[in-house]
């Protein structure tokens, strides 16, 4: 059974994690490599310098440096720069400079390669969904007796977008994906609109 095949390895992995000593609230060990740490340190360091310059240039309408609006942002950026240097130094000690750009290279593992392009595709879909709900603005009101059925661009954008996302990641038939997406979008919109009296985004 597939469960049995996976279970032992999974339990051993968990035991190894427990045996490794202090375990943080979020398991970041697996995602941390010296190369990634070095890249992070460089990017964060550059951002910190930018933030420090902006903090320094902030106008000071007060009489004292103690009330300068940029004081704490400057101090925070400076200390974060020190942390980034510390992170970078540790990464260098652990050999982070070797094969630095390997982080961005095409993974050798086909499963990881597939995961990566599926991630990129999903990011594109999510951005498209959020932007489309904002850009498309209209509202339809359909009186049904005393009740007025309202539809906004939220439903009209969410239904096709979620259908496509489901088709790609769930892999069932178009009709099934469409039915689930429609039911979910209408249910959620109704709960917010009628249940909690919260107007939907994407109406003029």
């Amino acid at each position: 059974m597939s469960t049995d095949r996976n279970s032992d390895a999974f339990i051993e992995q968990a035991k190894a994690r427990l045996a490794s000593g202090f375990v943080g609230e979020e398991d970041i060990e697996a995602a941390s490599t010296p190369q990634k740490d070095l890249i992070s340190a460089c990017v964060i360091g550059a951002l910190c310098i930018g933030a420090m310059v902006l903090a320094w240039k902030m106008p000071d309408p007060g009489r004292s440096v103690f009330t300068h609006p940029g004081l704490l942002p400057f101090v925070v950026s400076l200390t974060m720069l020190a942390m980034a240097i510390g992170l970078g130094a540790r990464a260098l000690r652990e050999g982070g400079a070797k094969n630095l750009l390997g982080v961005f290279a095409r993974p050798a593992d086909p499963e990881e390669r597939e995961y990566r392009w599926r991630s990129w595709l999903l990011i594109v879909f999510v951005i498209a969904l959020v932007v489309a709900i904002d850009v498309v603005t209209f509202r339809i009101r359909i009186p049904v007796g005393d009740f007025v059925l309202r539809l906004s661009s939220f439903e009209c954008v969410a239904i096709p977008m979620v259908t496509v996302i489901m088709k790609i990641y769930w892999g069932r038939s178009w009709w099934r994906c469409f039915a689930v997406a429609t039911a979910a979008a209408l249910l959620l919109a109704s709960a917010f609109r009628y249940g909690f009296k919260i107007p939907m985004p994407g109406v003029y």
Partner: protein
Amino acid sequence: MILEQLLLALTPYLIFVCLIGVTLGILWGAMPALSTTMAMALLIGLSTGMGQDTAIMFMLGVFTGSVFGGTITAVLINIPGTPDAVPTMIEGYPLARRGEGGLALGTAIGASFMGNWIGILLLIAFIPVVLALALQFRSWEMFLLATWGIAICGTMSAGKRPLKGWISGWIGLMVSFVGLESIHATPRYTFGLNILEDGISYIPVLIGLFGLSEILRVLPRKNYVGIPEAVGRVVPPVKTLWRHARTALRSGLIGTIIGAIPGAGANVASFLSYDIGRRRASPEERAKWGTGSYEAIVCSEAASNANIGGSMLPTLTLGIPGSAAAAAFLAALELKNVIVGPTMQIEHPGLIYYIYWSLIIANFLMYGMAIVLVKPCVKLFSLPLALLMPLILLICVLGSYAVSLSYFDVYVMLAAGLVGYILRRFGFPLAPLVLGAILGPVADENFRRALLVFEGKPFSSVFIDHPIGTLLLVVVLYTFYDGIFRRR
């Protein structure tokens, strides 16, 4: 006042709301990859349409239910629904394979119930003490406390790499600086955009970090669906629990203390309690650890559930969330104009008692619903994440929009989700970032106010006139020292 709040909490409608919250929490927690923090973050949006009492009852129901929910999958299909259920998985799944799944789950339910009680009772006992102490805090102390909160959160979240935790917290601080500052209304990091002058609300940041980034991480994976083992009869075995009562008490204490430390949530509590439990177990019991030990389940479950009460202690008394899930609860309170902190008893008399009662009611309902829901939950496991995640995406959009009916917040959620996804890929914890965003304004305002107070005074007066501040300064410096030199 205590009785008044009890009567309010016992209103049938509120009990019903709590029941819905607990049920939703258990189901949510039982689904692999759907964490407690994610549930809490997404449901903030839903709670905006509720009254204050309803929202508190609902959120605490979800919190209590979802912490337990992770246990079900851990025992039955060897996938921890929430990360804190990993030790339970190590012990529970071998028991399920031997046909003792029901008994293992029953023990977990009983231990969770006991753990919750310990957490709640310690919360009730210590709140007056911490509140009395917190009233002595002035600007300098508040600044140091906020700094310590972010620093310790970084240390506890990042394990052996505290620098990454602190950087994450400091990024959160930088996010909180965006907008008009509080003394002169000077724009900071707004880049001339009017929309940024109001600042960046931490609620969409929370939803993006724990909702969207999780979707981006999990959905592209071709997930494997486990086949649940036969559950058997789920009855909490009173005899087994009684035998492990001491263990439960010790684990509950560990869970509550860990919960009170900002950033250390149910995950650290359950791992630590499991580790301590293994060391203190009798030789014959220790031999069972790792192959199916009921005592180990008690250790893990009592600690992770006691953590709820513990995390409420700094959240309610100091306004410093004890965990990421508590940060979401804090956000829900803020939306209801509830200002938590030292003056909470004065500004919202009786509310603290209402929160106690809500936790107690949620605990009773969790106990009942856990027994009822275990078997129906098994059916839920066959629901693929690829079906659920797109629907959660819609909740992220609506939830972040509902907070202030501004679509800008949806863009903030999107940006936070993408940044959170990148940070996770590069091994940065996310909880300190949220804590930084929450505590940033507190730190900023109090830091500059304290500097004005100190202006013109001799340097030594900073230490002599502020003994609590000096103590806190030592604690902050020690936290950094410990992270840099001792956790290598």
